[in-house]
């Protein structure tokens, strides 16, 4: 029998649902047997579940080679009410396959890394039993993320969207009893969840509007509707896209909803790398790229998205300059880079956005994991140095002011970190250069304002990464812990090396002139091959080099000494204080929203609920009325009505029986006569009646 191309492709597409099912199987196995079987079992199950999901993603990639138009794999009917139909169907096309490959690939590496990292972390934090729970959540996250990227309608996407949000919440609060005041981590998780809910609200409203106007939630049908009716109902499309944009700003941590992401660093470092840098936060970008036809029909929303993205890029980059926590710098950097992507998709440069999304996933995962490696190395050093000394003083292994000179002590980590930082700074020929440059080139062609914002943000990026590298790895150790830091085992460093390799060659995905990714994605979304702009590229490289040079001037030539304030503080003065304090945005939100909300809640609880509802309405109105009513029931009503009815019935019965008893004479003949009369009557009825 001849296997045609089509038949084979069909066959491979049919494996798609396993990409969700395999991580679920992994998590169920770990949930049921993990605790009993030990860490080895847990890590093997979790890693192989995700690795096999990656294999499925590769199979989908191969299937798409023959059929680039993709396929929809129907798994089950979920909701079918009237005209609303939301099946669980997987949409396999080049866009979702890109996300599937990226997410499962990076997830696999981070899972392997987490095997080593969590082994140490659960011991450092003092609860080895949570090892299993971590990997259960991690597998759950991969499953939810796969539902999100493979969804073929908005409702199914929302399921994944909420699923990853839940995992994010669970993992930020993974050490829920730790953190500031014993609730710091729990509060961070709550903040992430609530901030995301604001975005989710936007997504929900957008879905209602889409269904209300387009009559369907299926991507294809909605986009078809927009092509036909988009111009006629431009207002509705604009409203839909604005609400979708609100959803994206929540999930992808853009202004004004970005505040949760820096706090999300309370989670273990692999979580920061996987969820809060590489994958989940890109869901908003992916969603906008997926909804491309809607955004193309709404120029205002697209421009707003571009502006929000660019503003976020610069704003977050400026905060990153003033941070001391190694993970917080990376968190603000992530927000900033997500701003780049948001600006790109806002400008309609979906390929550039997706390109940066993928390369960013590589190098930001690398940076976060390396930061985790640094932190663990320093924790080791702290543990080592603390022996024999006083242990009371609180030591923050995340604080870059406690580091320094780690270059020689952690060689592998240093080199991979340097790779990631250079990739992020946009130094050619690393991945970040090509992807960021494509965004900048598109921006320079489309919108000057966006271009300037992004260019300055890129400058800041190079500066804060230079600052971080110099503070962490160069100079002399500023604490005993850093002086005794040691390199981590291969289970952690090998994934780092792989990611470093990807960060170096990732740019090859969409080299100028070749446009591999552009040609790959053109089957799914509207693309335009962006021209390589030599001027823009040169300018951004010069900017990056200048920024690194400036960082060297400040932090490299004369390394930061122990206890010395940041040299930028002297130069920038109050501006640096602003950067250090994150421009007081949390405080501003606290003043604008949280405090009024708390006051309102207090008012509702004290005045409305307690005084009005409880004291007045319940006690006075209801209580007294009830008392009066029961008094009336027990007194007049019971005596005069209820008793009268009962007594009346008794009297009636007595009267009737007094008359009827006369009939009962006791004489047999009377009864016999009655029987006779009755018999005669019956007989006469039959005879005459």
């Amino acid at each position, binding site marked *: 029998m001849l296997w045609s191309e089509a038949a084979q492709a069909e066959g491979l597409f049919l494996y798609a649902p396993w990409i969700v099912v395999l991580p679920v199987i992994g998590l169920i196995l770990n949930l049921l047997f993990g605790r009993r079987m030990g860490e080895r079992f847990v890590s093997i199950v979790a890693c192989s579940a995700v690795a096999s999901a990656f294999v499925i993603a590769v199979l989908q990639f191969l299937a798409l080679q023959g059929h680039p138009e993709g396929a929809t794999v129907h798994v089950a009917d979920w909701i079918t009410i009237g005209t609303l139909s939301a099946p669980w169907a997987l949409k396999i096309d080049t866009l979702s396959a890109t996300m599937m490959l990226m997410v499962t690939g990076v997830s696999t590496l981070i899972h392997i890394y987490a095997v080593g990292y969590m082994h140490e972390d659960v011991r450092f934090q003092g609860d080895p039993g949570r090892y299993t729970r971590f990997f259960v959540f991690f597998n759950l996250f991969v499953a939810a993320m796969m539902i999100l990227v493979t969804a073929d309608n908005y409702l199914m996407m929302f399921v994944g969207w909420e699923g990853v949000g839940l995992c994010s919440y669970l993992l930020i609060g993974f050490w829920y009893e730790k953190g500031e005041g014993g609730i710091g981590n729990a509060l961070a998780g709550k903040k992430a969840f609530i901030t995301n809910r604001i975005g989710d609200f936007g997504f929900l409203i957008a879905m209602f509007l889409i269904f209300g106007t387009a009559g369907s939630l299926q991507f294809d049908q909605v986009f078809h509707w927009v092509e036909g009716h988009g111009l006629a109902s431009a207002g509705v499309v604009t409203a839909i896209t604005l609400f979708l944009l609100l959803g994206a700003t929540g999930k992808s941590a853009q202004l004004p909803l970005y505040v949760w992401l820096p706090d999300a660093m309370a989670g273990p470092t692999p979580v920061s790398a996987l969820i809060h840098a590489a994958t989940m936060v890109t869901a908003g970008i992916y969603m906008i790229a997926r909804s491309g036809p809607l955004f193309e029909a709404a120029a205002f929303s697209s421009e707003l998205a571009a502006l929000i993205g660019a503003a976020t890029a610069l704003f977050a980059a400026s905060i990153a300059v003033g941070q001391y926590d190694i993970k917080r710098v990376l968190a603000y950097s992530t927000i900033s880079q997500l701003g780049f992507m948001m600006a790109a998709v806002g400008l309609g440069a979906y390929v550039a956005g997706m390109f940066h999304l993928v390369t960013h996933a590589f190098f930001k995962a690398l940076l976060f994991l390396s930061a985790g490696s640094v932190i663990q190395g320093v924790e080791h050093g702290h543990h080592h140095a603390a022996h024999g000394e006083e242990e009371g003083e609180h030591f923050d292994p995340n604080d870059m002011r406690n580091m320094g000179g780690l270059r020689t002590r952690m060689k592998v980590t240093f080199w991979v970190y340097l790779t990631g930082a250079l990739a992020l700074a946009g130094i050619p020929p690393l991945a970040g250069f090509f992807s960021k440059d494509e965004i900048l080139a598109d921006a320079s062609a489309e919108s000057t304002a966006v271009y300037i914002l992004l260019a300055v943000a890129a400058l800041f990026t190079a500066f804060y990464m230079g600052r971080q590298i110099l503070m962490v790895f160069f100079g002399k150790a500023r604490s005993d812990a850093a002086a005794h830091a040691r390199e981590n085992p291969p289970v952690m460093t090998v994934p780092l090396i792989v990611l470093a390799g990807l960060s170096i060659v990732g740019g090859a995905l969409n080299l100028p002139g070749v446009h591999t990714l552009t040609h790959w994605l053109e089957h799914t979304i509207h693309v335009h091959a962006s021209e390589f702009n030599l001027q823009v590229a040169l300018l951004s490289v010069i900017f990056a080099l200048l920024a690194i040079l400036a960082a060297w001037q400040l932090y490299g030539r004369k390394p930061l000494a122990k206890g010395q304030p940041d040299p930028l503080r002297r130069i920038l003065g109050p501006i640096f204080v602003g950067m250090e304090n994150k421009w007081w945005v949390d405080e501003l939100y606290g003043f604008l929203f949280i405090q009024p909300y708390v006051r309102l809640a207090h008012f509702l609880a004290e005045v409305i609920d307690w005084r009005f509802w409880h004291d007045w309405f319940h006690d006075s109105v209801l209580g007294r009325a009830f008392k009066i009513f029961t008094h009336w029931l027990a007194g007049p009503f019971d005596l005069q009505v209820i008793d009268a009815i009962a007594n009346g019935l008794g009297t009636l019965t007595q009267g009737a029986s007094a008359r*009827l008893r*006369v009939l009962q*004479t*006791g*004489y*047999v*003949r009377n009864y016999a006569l009655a029987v006779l009369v009755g018999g005669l009557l019956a007989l006469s009825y039959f005879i005459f009646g």
Partner: protein
Amino acid sequence: MNIPPAYVLALSGILFAMGVLGVMIRRNAIVIFMSIELMLNSANLVLIGAARAMAPAVEALRGHVFVFFVIAVAAAEVAVGLALIVAIFRTKGTIDVDEVSSLRG
């Protein structure tokens, strides 16, 4: 010899009426009892007469069968009835039904 059914019906009617009158008028429980037997037998007479009237047919046997039933039931009734009368006599010292009227209202 062929007796017309009307004669049989008339005889049984007379017997039945005598039984009824006996029950209504007499006060001795034994006599009332015998009057009841009279009524039962008048009914038997009707059944037998009807059976004879449709003689060669197999259905005629039903009349005979009914009669046997009635006789059997009457025998059982007599047993119970006489036992009741004896019990009444033992407690009341009489079998005059007018004396036994303690169930009056």
